[in-house]
């Protein structure tokens, strides 16, 4: 028969040499041995190898980061970095870096400031209506306006070509040259502004307690949230998940996203009004710092909100706060600015003492109304009554910028290019959540809604594909993460030798009984309160335990069972 002769062996095909990867193949790549389909397995293996290889390459890419971060290092134990004044730092800094130390003496304060995302441009606003934007490195002024009314905040939009000012009654948008483009009448009596660059949202909060999001690419109001907590004077954004943090006058801090009409998180942070609020960008938004009118500064862990990581009292009332890109916290309170650095400020500390000081700088022009770190520079700009002061804080700025995100040296063409790319990549406002990594994560396994006790009446032909595979025993559930497994792993040693249990089995073996509810009751009671019910339950449990112990001892033969006597009939049960 021709069947033998029909077979023609295909030649092996390989990638050309120039396209082959140069690095050695990665080790410890999952082999996907459980996958039967050869084609699929090969594909998965190739993908895994590719992923491992690119991961290794990313690690290697750190070698290519050329710029070095600034630093201040003491040599002996007796020296302190906070003793170093600005004059010494300026002397020690390079010529280019020393330009960062400036004093702007301006009337009409107090002033607030804001840097553009690439750190090249600075916008300032005085409460009497003096607004200016400029390239602070070359000293070119873009626009200078005397608005003749109260201005409360300023922010750049996507780049230096637009900025928004929170004025007496509305928010206004100006272009780079200071021409008024829009009057946003929806934002009434705004006090603070934030711009979410990846969502193109301008958010404002005002005296009427409304948080409003406006899409600056389409002009639509995306969300208006009534906070129901009165006038609000504190607003901060988490750069990593675009959640807005509001600090209210009753000491509550609330977290907002555009798609839910109530706060995602609400915590009672202070006993008086919240004054300063900032989220740490250097740890992916893990830590938040708040300060209140009660003079307390608190650092919170945003993962669990269980109390503060650290708190201390400052003198002089409410403090303005700002985290730098590398995790230094600046606290402007009273007549000075203090900067604290990373490991100490994030490690839990029970005593209410301030963390070790990194740098301090006195400013004799109270009040200090804003602190801003300049991105990609070791500069801290403080707004106060007599203008603005920029001081050098070595080691707080991220030394290596990424040109695709923010480039201080970008030219006109690159700016335009990035604006268009940014618009194309605009993320929809309803994608803002507390966990930004939910995009592209595995969906939770679906459950058939009609199933009662895991049995349903749906014919096989009408089942969804995954269910069919499950019925046939062909479903590959190796990638599924069972949350019970993690608990079991944490619990430990005893079960390790046993076979891994299925979820249903575990559910079945879970201890349920009378004893448990009693124990739960006791656990929920406060230990130091003497409650007659709790005492009774404790006694009952003790009795049960004793009975069990006796029964076990009898079983093992350590103890003899008490012989029944005639007097037993009089015993209390």
């Amino acid at each position, binding site marked *: *028969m*021709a*069947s033998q*002769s*029909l*077979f*023609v062996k295909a030649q092996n095909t390989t990638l050309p040499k120039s396209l082959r990867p140069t690095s050695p193949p990665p080790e410890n790549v999952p082999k996907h041995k459980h996958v039967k389909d050869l*084609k699929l397995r090969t594909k998965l293996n190739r993908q895994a190898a590719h992923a491992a290889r690119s991961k290794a390459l*990313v690690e290697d890419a*750190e070698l*290519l*980061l050329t710029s*070095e971060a*600034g*630093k*201040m*290092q003491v*040599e002996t134990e007796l*020296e302190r970095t906070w003793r*170093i004044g600005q004059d*010494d*730092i300026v002397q*020690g*800094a*390079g010529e*280019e*870096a020393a330009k960062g130390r400036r004093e702007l003496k301006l009337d009409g304060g107090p002033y607030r400031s804001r840097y553009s995302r690439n750190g090249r441009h600075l916008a300032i606003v005085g409460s009497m209506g003096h607004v200016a934007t400029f390239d602070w490195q070359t000293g070119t002024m873009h626009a200078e306006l005397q608005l003749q009314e109260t201005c409360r905040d300023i922010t750049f939009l996507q780049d230096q070509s637009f900025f928004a000012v929170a004025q007496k009654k509305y928010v206004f948008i100006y272009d780079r040259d200071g021409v008024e483009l829009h009057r946003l009448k929806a934002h009434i009596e705004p006090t603070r502004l934030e711009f979410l660059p*990846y969502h193109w949202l301008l958010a404002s909060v005002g005296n009427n307690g409304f948080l409003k999001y406006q899409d600056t690419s389409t002009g639509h109001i995306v969300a208006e949230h009534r906070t129901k907590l009165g006038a609000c004077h504190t607003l901060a954004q988490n*750069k*990593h998940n*675009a959640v807005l943090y509001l600090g209210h006058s009753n000491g509550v801090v609330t977290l907002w996203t555009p798609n839910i009409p109530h706060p995602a998180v609400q915590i009672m942070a202070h006993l008086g009004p919240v004054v300063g609020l900032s989220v740490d*960008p*250097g740890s*992916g938004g893990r830590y938040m710092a708040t300060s209140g009118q009660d003079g307390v500064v608190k650092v919170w862990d945003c993962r669990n909100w269980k109390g503060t990581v650290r708190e201390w009292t400052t003198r002089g009332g409410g403090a303005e706060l700002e985290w730098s890109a590398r995790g230094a916290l600046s606290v402007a309170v009273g007549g000075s600015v203090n900067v604290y650095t990373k490991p100490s400020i994030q490690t839990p500390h029970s005593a209410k003492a301030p963390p070790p000081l990194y740098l301090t700088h006195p400013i004799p022009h109270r009040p200090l109304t804003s602190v801003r770190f300049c991105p*990609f*520079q*070791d500069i801290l700009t403080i707004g106060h009554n007599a203008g603005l002061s920029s001081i050098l804080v*070595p080691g707080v*700025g*991220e030394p*290596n*910028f*990424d*040109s*695709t*995100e923010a*480039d201080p*040296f*970008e*030219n006109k063409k690159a700016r335009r290019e990035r604006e268009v790319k940014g618009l*194309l*990549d*605009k*993320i929809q406002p309803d*994608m803002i959540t507390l966990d*930004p990594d939910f*995009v*592209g994560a595995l969906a939770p396994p679906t459950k058939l809604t009609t199933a009662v006790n895991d049995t349903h009446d749906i014919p*096989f*032909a009408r089942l969804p594909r995954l269910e069919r595979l499950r019925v046939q025993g062909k479903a590959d559930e190796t990638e599924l993460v069972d949350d019970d497994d993690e608990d079991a792993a944490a619990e430990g040693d005893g079960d390790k030798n046993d076979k891994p249990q299925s979820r249903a089995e575990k559910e079945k073996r879970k201890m349920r009984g009378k004893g448990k509810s009693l124990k739960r009751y006791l656990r929920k009671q406060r230990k130091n309160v003497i409650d007659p019910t709790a005492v009774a339950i404790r006694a009952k449990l003790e009795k049960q335990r004793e009975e069990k112990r006796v029964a076990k001892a009898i079983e093992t033969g350590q103890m003899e069972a008490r012989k029944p006597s005639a007097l037993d009939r009089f015993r209390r049960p």
Partner: protein
Amino acid sequence: MVKISVLQHAPSVHLPARPGDPTPTTRNLDPLMHPFARARERNRALNAAKMDRLFAKPFVGALEGHIDAVEVLCKKPGSLSAVASGSWDGGIILHNVSERKHIRRIQGAHKGKVSGLCFAQDDRLLSCGVDSKIKLWDASPQDDITEQRPLNEYPGKSAFNSIDHHRSDPLFATASNIVQIWDETKSAAISNLTFPTSTETITSVRFNLSETSVLGSIGSDRTFTLYDIRTGKAERRVIMQMSSNALAWSPTFPTNVLLASEDHNLYTFDVRQLKTPTHIYKGHVAAVMSCDWSPTGLDFVSGGWDRTVRIWKEGQGTGPEVYHTKRMQRVSSSIFTADARFVLTGSDDGNVRIWKAKASEKLGIITARERAAIEYRDTLKDRWKHDNEVGRIQRNRHLPKPVYQAAKLKRTMLDTRAVKEERRRKHTRAGESKPHAERKKVIIVEQT
């Protein structure tokens, strides 16, 4: 003494050295520097999927000239542009596809329809018709494109349904009630091939492209038969549930054969294992009338009675690319061009249509930058295809209402049938009847 150093960027590193130089860029791959990286990438994937659908304009043009329905199309081996089409009116036209002109136009080449066409060596064309004649034509470009006289004529005994030429030798095979092998130089068939017990009409015959003496045929008796001209007999045949309308051998994997079946499906078989098809391709809502492999062997095209053309990926049985127009009627023939970039279809409305094989592909010169962008978009689409929204946009195809309704109805009917079968099984004695895999149901019997 305290060591102090303050961060500063040297402008000389970050600014172009001379005017006109590109501005140097720097990268920092720290994930903290790229917030929302995943969300932004998904957005790009979504845009890529949308752009792909936006630019999906597959129809390139139509080649006119036939008075009646186009029955058969064939491309010239080794040529990118020469294609012959035969029609129900008995006319044959040789097209130059790239210029969209006629090379030759033969009116009334046969009485009745032209049922088979194939190119022979030295720029000649073989045609057969229901008038029981095979004619050999000169297919080279001439001054008078309407030259009518054939080079040679081979008389047959019954109406021919199909013709195919040997890959290298001057032999060709025809299909009528038997398969006949002809020598170009002889006026009668040199051998007759038939399965011993067969009494059917052979509808199509094709030589294998690699093992050149093997040929396959399909017949009205729902059969697929394999012959070898060296032994001069039929080697093996299978009888299927429904008869097939067309067959095509894979150009890259010689043992693979594709059958376009009357039951709306396409089947690929490995001829070493004829018991089950290797894949079933489901999508058409009426009989599949024609099929042809891409020269790469990775895709194939099929045209159906449902007035749609579908382009399938080998090994992927669902979700084909679907082409249709308002004016296109039942598609009776479809072929891939030799560069795998275009698809030609002949339909009952008398037109030969040219389609792009990839609906959103840009024709014309593509710059390196554009190519890089296209490749990036393709990667994104592939990486995010499991995302609900991206996948939905990628999969969704607009269908003519009758096709859509027919597909819906068909799905309902098949579902109901499966459910009924299952319920019946549930109420019969255990082990009485077992469910069979879909692939096992296709073949009734294999005969040798």
